[in-house]
């Protein structure tokens, strides 16, 4: 039997890798890839707490499904913004998108 700790450590490691990607990548699409890894780590936590807690309470799995919906919405809007910015500025490098900086 696998103890709960293994899943939680896997999720923490995946979250930290995603956080690293969000903080250091220059390309806006690569930043969104890091966000996806972080959302998946959260989902592993939700599903493992469902399995190791009360399995008849479905809240953990329902939350995971709602996170899927929110992730799909986030990716659709994020990539639309990146494509729109690319059309106007011809760049997707996050450092060069400084129109809102004084």
């Amino acid at each position: 039997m696998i103890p709960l700790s293994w899943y939680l450590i896997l999720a923490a490691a995946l979250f930290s890798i995603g956080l690293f990607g969000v903080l250091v990548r220059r390309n806006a699409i690569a930043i969104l890839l890091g966000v996806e890894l972080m959302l998946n780590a959260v989902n592993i936590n939700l599903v493992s707490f469902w399995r190791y807690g009360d399995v008849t309470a479905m809240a953990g799995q329902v939350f995971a499904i709602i996170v899927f919906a929110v992730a799909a919405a986030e990716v659709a809007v994020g990539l639309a913004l990146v494509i729109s910015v690319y059309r106007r500025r011809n760049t997707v490098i996050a450092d060069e998108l400084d129109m809102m900086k004084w």
Partner: protein
Amino acid sequence: MTGEQIIFLITAGFTLGSGLMVVTARNLVHAALWLVSALFGVAVTYALLNANFIAVVQIVVYIGAIAILFIFAVMLTRRDMRESGPQMNKNWWSGAILAALVFAGLAFLLQGWGGFSKTASAFPSGFDAVGELGEALVSPDAFVLPFEVASVLLLAALVGAVYLAFNKK
């Protein structure tokens, strides 16, 4: 060591290795393909947790829709991929330190928690997890309101995405 534990360790190593490739690959198409393999590893983890429906949704929605959307976005911004220049900003080491600190802090907090090395109890006999999940999603005493709000959010986000990416000229 049981067979289940060996499968878990292989899956975890595969997922974390693919995740590291996602954040370090120079070529963005390769990063998106490594994301597909990391998402597949997460789907295997869900299957190990007996969450069959979530595992299938992970493959259909994440790999089938979200990862493909990423690959399309990478190709639509292809002229600007700049594989020659640096892919990480100059403060990458402070990002690495911060990520390592977050991992160490989470591990420290978790090992101090009482339920950390809990093992899973067996399913009650005749328990149908997928049927229970379906009922929980549409039952008025459970999660029908969050479920409907999530669908409205998805609709609004997709209309917004079409509006944002629409070429007005």
